């Protein structure tokens, strides 16, 4: 007997693979944004080095962010949002499974499928770009392994933070608004808009105490060598803590929401 969660994950994966045009347009968009960000921050970073962050590192940071866009971009699980708004969620109630897990794996499948379809072309082309504009190689093998580990945890954390938007959708019955707020907060505080190394030290200190930078800032900085192996290991521990905490809070919130839910109409 197969695991239900894996089946759900596979289903979402299959669904995502149905649309090729979506992936191609996604890649194009990511290229556009990558080049735009790099040009922008190159202009700002005239002094070459800010907080120990070089232009080469900045370019790599940006390209990784574009290549793994879907893994680091929290938001609304579109299916769940639609289900709740339209009331189709009532079917989910009539299944012998845990709703939180089901949504979690669905969203994870959606994210992974979309990342798998996009990341390779972006990585390849950005490696071919000239230095200071392209993606540099990882500093060494152990930091590359650490990068992979922290990226996986970051992706799981990204999904568990996105799960909060399901709770707020239950409360407000609108998926757009809640998703927008959660995306805005986590993108800003997670370093997706301004790379965290470019922020003032005082701000960085505060962000270290929030979960958001462990989604993508940590893996990317391990990759470019901005965070060393020892530091990296400690911070991976912190990100694991956040992963468990956000999942627990999410589960409690969804449980609370389900108790109050009223399916209206027809």
């Amino acid at each position, binding site marked *: *007997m197969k695991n239900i969660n894996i*089946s759900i994950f596979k289903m979402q994966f299959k669904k995502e693979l149905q649309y090729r045009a979506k992936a191609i347009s996604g890649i194009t968009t990511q290229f556009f944004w990558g080049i735009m960000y790099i040009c922008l921050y190159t202009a700002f970073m005239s002094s070459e080095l800010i907080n120990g962050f070089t232009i080469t590192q900045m370019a790599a940071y940006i390209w990784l962010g574009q290549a793994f866009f879907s893994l680091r971009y929290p938001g609304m699980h579109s299916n769940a949002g639609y289900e709740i708004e339209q009331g189709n969620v*009532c079917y989910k109630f*009539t299944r*012998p*499974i845990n709703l939180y897990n089901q949504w979690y794996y669905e969203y994870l499948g959606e994210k992974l499928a979309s990342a798998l379809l996009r990341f390779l072309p972006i990585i390849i082309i950005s490696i071919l770009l000239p230095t200071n504009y392209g993606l540099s190689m990882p500093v060494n093998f152990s930091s590359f392994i650490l990068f992979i580990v922290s990226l996986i945890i970051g992706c799981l954390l990204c999904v568990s933070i996105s799960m909060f938007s399901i709770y707020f959708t239950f409360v407000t019955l609108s998926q757009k608004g809640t998703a927008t707020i959660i995306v805005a907060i986590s993108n800003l505080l997670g370093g997706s808009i301004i790379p965290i190394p470019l922020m003032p030290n005082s701000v960085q200190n505060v962000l270290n105490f929030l979960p958001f930078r462990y989604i993508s800032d940590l893996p990317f900085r391990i990759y470019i060598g901005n965070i060393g192996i020892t530091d990296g290991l400690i911070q991976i521990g912190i990100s694991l803590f956040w992963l468990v905490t956000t999942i627990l809070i999410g589960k409690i919130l969804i449980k609370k929401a389900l108790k109050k839910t009223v399916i209206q109409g027809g």
Partner: protein
Amino acid sequence: MSKIIEFTNICKQFKIPEKKNGKWSFLSNFFKRKYKIIQALDNINFSINEGDIVGYIGPNGAGKSTTIKIMSGILTPTSGECIINGYIPWKSRKEYVKNIGVVFGQRSQLWWDVPVIDSFELLKDIYKISDEEYKETLNILNKALNLEELLSRPLRQLSLGQKMKCELAGSLLHKPKILFLDEPTIGLDAVTKLAVRDFVKYINKVWNTTIILTTHDMNDIEALTNKIILIGKGKILYNGSFDNIKHQYANEKIIQVEFTKPYENVYLDGYELISHEKNVATFKTLNNTEFHTKSFLNEISQKYDIVDFSINSLSVDEILARLYKEYKL
């Protein structure tokens, strides 16, 4: 036969914000909200035997869907007790729902973007159905509903009728003991409707599935159910066989008569004239008088020269409309 569903004193209240009307009311509504309590279900009591097909009928907003939702574990009632198949649906949801199937005619449980068979396979994993059992069940459903061609196509490419067939099959993959159908024939053409009806009957026969069905199509009720529960304004108004109700109105006949030439002031003792136009007149039997074709023909042919006539009983829809009127719904 054992009782599979028992509802005792179930009540359900909804709290909804009350909106005032007026030019600036949207502002005051924004700051101060008044809530109104709506009694959706008021002391509902009934029981259903295993293997029954029960029609659950009532006008729009009577509380049908609310009841179905409580029965399928989606809603928690405000008060009252309900035991279905040995479980309290909303308390032990996960164990309970293994043995029920639900189809909401206006919603979809299958995945929109992928072939139907993929949805089925996911359902198979969700319900932990073994390979052999799944194959066997799918085979039965396939034959009964003619699904073969549909299974490889994504749901979004199917027509409404094809979709409904797939939804029905999807809700039965795990061979539930109880099947809830909320308006399963809504929007379907005549052929598909008949197919769905036959299928529901078939399933009830081969698996002894208890089926609870809400619908506004009275022909569904007539063709399928052996018992109806009529609900209105949150209360149960009638609980029994549909034939009983039909008997009550069996005496009422509508007779249309065509004359050879137009008459003025058509009148017949013992019958009510409903309409009269040129040479066609329509009569109705008076309350609870039995209709005899012979005596009617005798009487009318003595007075008028008739070419043709037809006798009609009340249609099931008319009977229901009459019922609603009687109960002031």
